[in-house]
C-alpha cells in the first residue's frame, strides 16, 4: 500500500469507518502523532482521539442520554473551524459514526467541509465482524445468544438474496453493508472523492500505511497505540454483559445511568482487566462462516463496480483464510472471579468519577444523582471546614495582634 498516491493539498480527509474496521486504532495513531503530523501540514483537530459526541450530533442528529445536542453540534463546527484556522495541507476528521449518517447529516458534513473533501471508508471481511459486533451489542442492548443472532442476521435475505436489516440489531447491516455504504458516499461525493481501504488483519501495518500514503507521510509515522481497553471479550464475559445489560436496559433503570455505568462502566471494567486465559473465545459456526464469505464476495463485486478508488485487495472480503475460529461454544454458566470483580469495578470506577459540582447534570440518571449528592455533601463539608479553619486562624491572629499592643502599650 505504500504506493498510494497522496491526496492533493487543501483536501479534508474524512474517515467514516464503519465500526470495527480499525477506526479506534487509526484515531489513536492520528491523535498521538499530532505534533509530527503538524510538521507535514496535517491537522487532526479536537481534544480527544475520537470526538464521538460532536460527530453524533452533526451526523445522526442525537447524542447519548445526559448530553446536550446543541452543545455537541456546535462542538463539531468548532472542530472544523479549528482545522481551517490552521490552514493545513490536509485536514483529517475520523469517526465511525459518519457511516450511519442521516441524509441531512451526511449532507451537513460534506457541505461544511467543502468540495475538496475526500471520503475514506475502511472495510473488513464480514466474516470477521460478526463476533466482534455481537460482542459490542451485548455491551449496549439486549440481544439474543450468538447462534440465534447469527441465524437472524445472516438469514434476513431480501428476495434478491441480499442481507437486509431486520428488527434485531438493524444497525448491523446499516453499518456493514459496506458495498451500499460505498455506493451511497460515491453518490453523495462522487467516485473520485471516495477511497476504500481493505483492511487485512494479518498485516498490522497495512491500515496505517494506507493513511500514510493518502496523507503523504513517511512510512512508519502513524503507529496505532496498544489499546487494552478495546479488547474482545471472552465468551463468559460476553454472557455476563448480556445478563447485566438485559437487566438494566429498561425501567426502573434510566438510559442515562445504563449508558454511564453499564455500557461505559461495567463493560470497560471487563476490557481493562486481562482476560482469563482459560476462558473460551467466541466461536462462529461453520455454516455462518460459509454464508458470511458468500456475502463478502457479493460486496466485493459491488464495491469494485462503484468507481471508488480501492486500496488493498477486495478478494480478502471472501477469503476463508481470514475466517475466525470456527465451532460452537459449549454452554457456560460461570465466570472467573477476577472477571466478575472487574464488572463491578467498572461501575465503581465510574461512580467515583461523578464530579461534586454545585449542581448535578440536568440529565443525570437517579444513580448518578445519588452518587453526586454524596460527593457534593463531602465537598461542601470540606469547604465549610476550610472556611471555619480560615476564620479561626484570622481570629487567632487578631487576638495575638491585640495582645502584642497591650504588652507594648
Amino acid at each position: 500500500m505504500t504506493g498510494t498516491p497522496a491526496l492533493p493539498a487543501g483536501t479534508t480527509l474524512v474517515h467514516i469507518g464503519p465500526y470495527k474496521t480499525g477506526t479506534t486504532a487509526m484515531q489513536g495513531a492520528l491523535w498521538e502523532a499530532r505534533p509530527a503530523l503538524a510538521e507535514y501540514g496535517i491537522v487532526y483537530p479536537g481534544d480527544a482521539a475520537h470526538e464521538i459526541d460532536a460527530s453524533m450530533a452533526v451526523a445522526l442528529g442525537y447524542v447519548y442520554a445526559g448530553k446536550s445536542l446543541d452543545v455537541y453540534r456546535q462542538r463539531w463546527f468548532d472542530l472544523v473551524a479549528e482545522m481551517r484556522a490552521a490552514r493545513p495541507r490536509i485536514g483529517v476528521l475520523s469517526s465511525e459514526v459518519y457511516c450511519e449518517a442521516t441524509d441531512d447529516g451526511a449532507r451537513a458534513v460534506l457541505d461544511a467541509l467543502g468540495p475538496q473533501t475526500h471520503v475514506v471508508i475502511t472495510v473488513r471481511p464480514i466474516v470477521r465482524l460478526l463476533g466482534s459486533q455481537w460482542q459490542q451489542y451485548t455491551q449496549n442492548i439486549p440481544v439474543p445468544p450468538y447462534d440465534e443472532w447469527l441465524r437472524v442476521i445472516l438469514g434476513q435475505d431480501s428476495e434478491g438474496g441480499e442481507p437486509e436489516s431486520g428488527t434485531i440489531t438493524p444497525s448491523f447491516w446499516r453499518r456493514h453493508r459496506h458495498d451500499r455504504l460505498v455506493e451511497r458516499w460515491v453518490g453523495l461525493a462522487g467516485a473520485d472523492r471516495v477511497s476504500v481501504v481493505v483492511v487485512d488483519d494479518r498485516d498490522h501495518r497495512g491500515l496505517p500505511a494506507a493513511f500514510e500514503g493518502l496523507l503523504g507521510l513517511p512510512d512508519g509515522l502513524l503507529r496505532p497505540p496498544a489499546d487494552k481497553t478495546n479488547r474482545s471479550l471472552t465468551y463468559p464475559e460476553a454472557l455476563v454483559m448480556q445478563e447485566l445489560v438485559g437487566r438494566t436496559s429498561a425501567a426502573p433503570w434510566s438510559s442515562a445511568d445504563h449508558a454511564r455505568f453499564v455500557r461505559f462502566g461495567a463493560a470497560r471494567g471487563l476490557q481493562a482487566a486481562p482476560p482469563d486465559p482459560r476462558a473460551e473465545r467466541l466461536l462462529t459456526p461453520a455454516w455462518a462462516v460459509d454464508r458470511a464469505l458468500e456475502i463478502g464476495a457479493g460486496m466485493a463485486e459491488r464495491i469494485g463496480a462503484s468507481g471508488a478508488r480501492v486500496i488493498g485487495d477486495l478478494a480478502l472480503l471472501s477469503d476463508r483464510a481470514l475466517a475466525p475460529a470456527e465451532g460452537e461454544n459449549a454452554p457456560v454458566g460461570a465466570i472467573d472471579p477476577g472477571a466478575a470483580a472487574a464488572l463491578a469495578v467498572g461501575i465503581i470506577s465510574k461512580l467515583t468519577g461523578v464530579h461534586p459540582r454545585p449542581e448535578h447534570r440536568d440529565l443525570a440518571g437517579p444513580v448518578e444523582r445519588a452518587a453526586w449528592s454524596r460527593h457534593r455533601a463531602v465537598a461542601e463539608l470540606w469547604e465549610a471546614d476550610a472556611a471555619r479553619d480560615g476564620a479561626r486562624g484570622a481570629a487567632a491572629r487578631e487576638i495575638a495582634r491585640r495582645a502584642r499592643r497591650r504588652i507594648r502599650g
Partner: protein
Amino acid sequence: MILQVHDARAGMNAFAVPTWWASLEDERVIRDDDELPDVTLVELAGPSAGRTLLVVGAVAELLAEPTPEALASWAEEVRALHSDAAPVHLAVSLDEVTSLEQLLTLASGRRWPPFDVRAAAARTDADPVPQQSVTGGQAAARAYADALVAQVEVLLPPSWQTAADGAAEATACISRALDADPDVSAADARVLRDACRSTLAELEADGVTISGPRDALLWPVPAEHGQIPIDVAADAALEVMLGQLERPADLAPDRPVVVPLEQLPARALLARLGGRR
C-alpha cells in the same frame, strides 16, 4: 398518612412485637386492635405513607423449607397483604431493626445506616479501599473480593466512601449468593434461585415495591469449580448501583448554590439571566 406494619409473621417484621412498639414511646405509633388487629400504624409523611411495610431478611429465614412450594406459599402470604389501598413494600434488611428511625428509613426505600457525610469526609482518594471480609470457606468469594479491591480506583477526592461502599456491597452480595454449606443439591439450589428471581419479578409486576439488598431474597447457590455463576456476578454489579441509589446524601434544600461560571452550561446561564431557575 399512615404506614401499616403487620406483626411479626413467617420471618417478616421479626421486630414487630408488642414489647418493641411499647419501648418506643412515640406518639406517632398507633395501635387499634379493634379496627386493625395484628397491625401497628405509624404516622408519617412522604411517599412511603399508605403502604404496608414488610421488613424481611435473607430468603432462608422466610421459607419453611428450601422448596419451590415453600417459596410459592411465602409469595401468597405477601400477596394476601397487598392491596391497591395499602400496597406492600418489601424492605430487605439484614440487620435487626432496633429503632423507629431505622424503621422509617427502611420504609422510605433507603438503607440503614444512612450515608454519614462526616465519616465520608474523613477520607480522601489517597486512602486505600479496605480489604473485604467474606464468609469462611468461600474460596471463589475470597478471590472475587481480592480482585475487586486490587482493581478499584477512587477517581475524585470526595468519592472514597462511594468506592468503599461499592466494594463492600458487591462483595457482600457475592458472599450471600455463594453457599459454602448448602442444604440442598447444586441443581436444586439453582432451580430455587431461579424460582426466587421469577417470584420477585412477579411480585413487582403486581405492584409490590422491593428495596434494600434484594439479592438476599434469592436462594444461594454453590460456586462452580471456583467460578462465579453468571447471574450472581450480574447481581453483584447491580448491587453496587442499588447501594448508591438507596443511600444518597441529604443536601439541604435551601443550601446556597454558587455555581462557578466556567461550570455553568450556556443554556442554564441564559435561563438564570432571564430570571428562571
